[in-house]
Structures are given as C-alpha cells and as structure tokens.
C-alpha cells in the first residue's frame, strides 16, 4: 500500500469515528465562510472601476488607481493620522485601565463591597453605544451638562467640549474606558483568580506586603493573559470604536476625530464610492494583519506566550 492510500484510509476511518466533532464544528465554519470569506470576493472592486450596473465581475480592472487617489487625498491621510493617534492613546490609557481595575478589585477584602463595585463598573458595557454616547453628549453639553455646571461653580464659562477638536480625544478615550474597562477587567480577574493561593501564603510567611505581592506575584502571574490581550488589542488597533466616533464627532471636530473607518463610511455608504471605500478597507485590513503578526512574533520570542 502506498503512503497516500494509507493516509486516505486513515482519514476515512477518522471521519467515521469522529464525525460528531465535525458536525459540531460545522456551524462555525459555515458562519465564517458565509460572512467573512464569501464577501472577500467583493474585495476585487478595490482594483476595479466599479459600477453597480456592470456588477463586480463586469467592471473593468484599473490596478492601484484607487489607492493612488486615496493617498493623494488629505482627508484620508488625516484619517490615518487620527486613527494612529487614537490607537496609541487607547493602548496607553484604555488598555491598562481594566488591568488596574482588576488589581484594585483584588485588593478589596469586603466581599459585598467588591461585588457592588464590580457590578457598577460592568454596567456601562451593557448600555447600547448610542445611549452611552447620548449620556456623554448630555454630560458635556454647554447648557445643561453636569460638567459645565460643575465648572460653572468655579466661575468657568461653559466650554463647547464636543465641538472643540482638542477635546475630542480625551472625551473619546474617556468614554471608551468608562464603557469597556469594567467588563474587560473580568478577563484579568479570572486570571488573578487562577493564581495558586499558596504562592501568596508562602509570600506572606516570607514577609511580603500586599503591595509587594501585587508586584511580585499577581502581575507576573497574569502577564501571559495581559500579553494575549495585548496581541488581540493590537490586531484591532485600527478598529477604534467606529460607532462611538460616529456618534460623538461632528464636522467641526473632523480634524482630530475622523478615522479611517468613518472615512470609509462617508466615502462608501454616504457618497456611494464603493470601490474607493473598498480600497481604504483593504488597506486597513492589511495593516491590521501585519500588526497582529508582528505582535504575535514579538510576544512569542520574548515571553513564550502567543495566540498561535
């Protein structure tokens, strides 16, 4: 019997024996195929002069013309710059927030207080982004907003926060943290819960303070989790939460607020330039792919932790 025959026979045996596993796998595969792989066929319009009437296949190829147009467009360059800056801020402020939160929760000894505090910070995650943005807009409103009211007590004139480009980034990052930090802390809390309790007991007997235990045991122990979350985060770096931007920005703040995804949205959906938008989207995806690969490789090399 040849090697190939052996292998195919093994495969048949394997399927006969384990078919249930493949049935379980099927829905996920179908979902991926239908919603993530099939649409990739449409990606080709990034390289075509697309017209709805001619269809995807019928439209003529034009090479990299759309990419050229994009990179000659100052708005697109600005969107890339804004995306990069917001992503950097996100990484700097929004990424550590849930870790710090989890570490703080871990230090709360009173169980009731701990549970109460956790529930309160988880809540914003369950509010729809539209409502959340509504709350933010109301809070910062110059007329009735709580922020300006409080500032008023100190004699500060009302600030039009949401129409000032310099305020967009702090408000956006802050709202993001408010919305997601609590819920994201669950992952880290789970990681902390998984730390062997006798490590702490041993450290207590050795004379470590709570602060030392946090730095020398808790943080190193959850480092693999932090790295995995960081890799995932870096992969999604360019996906600055598009809904929140759309809901919070206005033409006056485009200078700092317009990101690649909102640019794509305005070009593609609002102006109907599907081909140009597809090119921008493809660019986004390629950059994201490179980022994930890089982060994963670096993490694998330095900490033995990696997504795959």
């Amino acid at each position, binding site marked *: 019997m040849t090697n190939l025959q052996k292998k195919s026979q093994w495969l048949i045996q394997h399927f006969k024996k384990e078919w249930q596993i493949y049935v379980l796998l099927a829905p996920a595969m179908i979902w991926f195929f239908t919603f993530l792989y099939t649409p990739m066929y449409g990606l080709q319009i990034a390289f075509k002069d697309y017209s709805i009437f001619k269809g995807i296949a019928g439209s003529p190829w034009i090479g990299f013309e759309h990419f050229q147009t994009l990179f000659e467009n100052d708005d697109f360059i600005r969107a890339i710059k804004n995306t990069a800056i917001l992503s950097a801020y996100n990484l700097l402020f929004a990424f550590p927030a849930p870790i710090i939160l989890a570490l703080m929760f871990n230090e709360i000894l009173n169980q009731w207080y701990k549970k109460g505090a956790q529930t309160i910070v988880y809540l914003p995650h369950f509010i729809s982004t539209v409502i959340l943005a509504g709350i933010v807009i109301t809070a910062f409103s110059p007329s009735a907003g709580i922020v300006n009211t409080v500032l008023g007590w100190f004699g500060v004139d009302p600030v039009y926060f949401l129409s000032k480009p310099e305020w967009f980034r702090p408000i956006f990052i802050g709202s993001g943290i408010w919305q997601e930090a609590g819920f994201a802390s669950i992952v880290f809390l789970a990681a902390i819960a998984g730390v062997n309790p*006798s490590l702490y007991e*041993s450290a*207590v007997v*050795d*004379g*470590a303070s709570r602060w*030392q235990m946090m730095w*020398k045991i808790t943080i190193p122990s959850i480092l693999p989790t932090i790295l995995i979350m960081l890799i995932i985060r870096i992969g999604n770096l360019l996906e600055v939460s598009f809904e929140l931007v759309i809901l919070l920005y206005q033409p006056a703040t485009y200078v700092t607020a317009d990101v690649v995804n909102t640019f794509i949205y305005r070009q593609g959906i609002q102006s109907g330039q599907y081909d140009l938008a597809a090119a921008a989207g493809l660019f986004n995806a390629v950059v994201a792919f490179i980022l994930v690969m890089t982060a994963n490789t670096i993490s694998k090399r330095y900490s033995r932790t990696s997504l795959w």
Partner: protein
Amino acid sequence: MAGVTLDKIVKCYGDIEVVHGIDLNVAEKEFVVLVGPSGCGKSTTLRMVAGLEEITDGTLTIDDRLVNNVSPKDRDVAMVFQNYALYPHLNVAENIAFGLRIRKVPKDEVTKQVAEVAEILGLTEYLERKPADLSGGQRQRVAMGRAIVRHPKVFLFDEPLSNLDAKLRTQMRAEIKRLHKRLGVTSIYVTHDQVEAMTLADRIVVMADGRIEQIGTPMDLFNHPKNIFVASFIGSPPMNQIEAEVETRGDKLFANFGDNSLELPALNELSGSDHGRKVTLGIRPEHIMTQADADTSSIGVELDLIETLGSEALLHTTVMDKPFVVKAETHGDIKHLENLNAFHFKPGMIKVFDRETGNVFDYPERLK
C-alpha cells in the same frame, strides 16, 4: 529558646469548631510530626502556627514570645507547602532568594546565601532554571531551599512529600532527616503517612477529629498505643483487632472469642471482677508467631493469601469475620508458611483495649 508551645488552641470556622483545644510543647531543635487521617485538623493547626489562620482561642508562643496576634512575617517561621508554591516566573535562584529580597538583604549577601543553600541541596547547576523545567524532587528541594535560606527559628512542613512518587519520597525523607540533623532547626511536620511520621519524628502527635490522641516517640506509639485509634493508625500493616470477652481463671486472664481462648498478660486494671468485660485485643502482625512456644496460646486458622515481600511475607486470613494479617519471616522460602493452620500468641504481645472507651488497659505511668 526557640521552642513552640500551643496552649488550648482552638480553631473555629464560623460556628464550626474544627480544632478543639490542642496542647503541644515542641522543644528547641525537636522534630515533631503531626499525623492523622484526612480532615483531622493537622494543616489547620500548622497554619495557625504559621499565622496563616487566626487562632480562635488559646495561646501560641514561639521562643517564649506570645505570637497570637503577630503577623506571619514577624514570627520568624518558614513554611514548605505541599504543592511547593514556587513562583513560576522566577528561576531557582530567584525563588530561593525571594524571602531575602523581600527583607531587603543586600545583594551580595543574597547571592552568597543562595549559593550556600544551593550547595547543600545539590541545586547549584539548576539555579538558572524555571520551576517548570525541574523534576518533582528538584522542585521539592527548591521549596526547602526557600525555607532554609531565611534561617528561621521554626520550619513548618505541610505534607511536603505527598506529590512525589514512592521512591523519591523515601529519598527526600532521608534528605529532610539529614538536613534537620545538620541545621538543628525546630520543625513541625504534617503528614498523613505514618511511615513518614515514624521515620522522621523525634516525637509524633497523633490527631483525630481536631484532638490530640497521643504524643510520644515513634517507639512509644508503636509499643504503647494509648487507644485503639492510635494502635490502628501507627504501624504497617496495621494492628490486628479481635473483639473478645474477658474470662478470669484463678489469677490468670483469658480472652474468649468464637471457640478460641487466648491467655492475656497480667493487667493491673483488670481483675477478677472484670469477668465477661467486653474488650478489643490488639496484636501487631509482626508479634504473632507461626510456631508454638512454651507460654503461647494459639488459634486455628486457614490462610487465604500469602504476599511475599522477600525476607518477610504477609499471611492473610480472617478471624471472627475480620481481616487478620501476620508478618512472618521467610528465611528465603515460603514453603513452610503455606500449610500453616495455627497462629501462636505470647501474652505479653497482646494489647487489651476497653471496647467502651477504646483506651488501653495498663497504659504506662511514664507516658501519661
């Protein structure tokens, strides 16, 4: 000096009392082993000494200092845990150094001490490795190293060998014993393995249900168990038990069960008036003879099974519907054991326990 004294120590978890007033004096340099069945409160007691559990009632002194409310770090004790509690992200050297680093010992001093301890434990070539890359025995040694390096007043061990395989356990047991000889540090050691207790201890504390059943040297416990619980717990295979009734014939005592009658040793606490008293006889497997002698009485048996161990064999049978084991010398051959139909007992080798209280009759005065 650096002894440990527990005086009426009680531990409650909520409303449930799990340790019911323990009195124990551990002398300086002594190696005391707490032994007992699972859940009897050994770990809880040890953890109270370490300061990991609050003491509900009673007093604990270490080195003549009351430490009930002293935090673990100021008690100057070091503890070795069952699962070693090594920091996975630190290498062996850093793990051993942890306690010193925490105490801000100067770097040179730490390096020197770690090297010294590594030398003692044979870990020198593994100092750079992470715990994940060590064998079970090596991890165990690192855990010991972490305790030793701090030069504490007291070592506490909570089942440090129970994650090792049998062979390694024997080896590490000897190593712990040697280490104790060399360092002479007061040690309290918890185990549920009576062999470990017998081999390591200067004194053994047998616990059951949150109480101390008996404290004594290994040989005291073996030869003079205070009650039926200790008798059955210490020794392997365990002591055989036979339920019987006392019969007095003249000035001699006999125990009757089934059709059998065994002569008992003279006991001050049993007299003619105890005729018919219900007792449990305890006879160690190694104290039963396969050949009759001048002063022996015997019972007839049928062997079910012979387990050959080499120089010795275990003969299994049942007496009064209960398993009964005899350890006999093989002298290199088991032929002479195969056709045995009687076991012989010297009166002096039979322990007699009151079946009501479980206590032995004539417990030696010096052990009380």
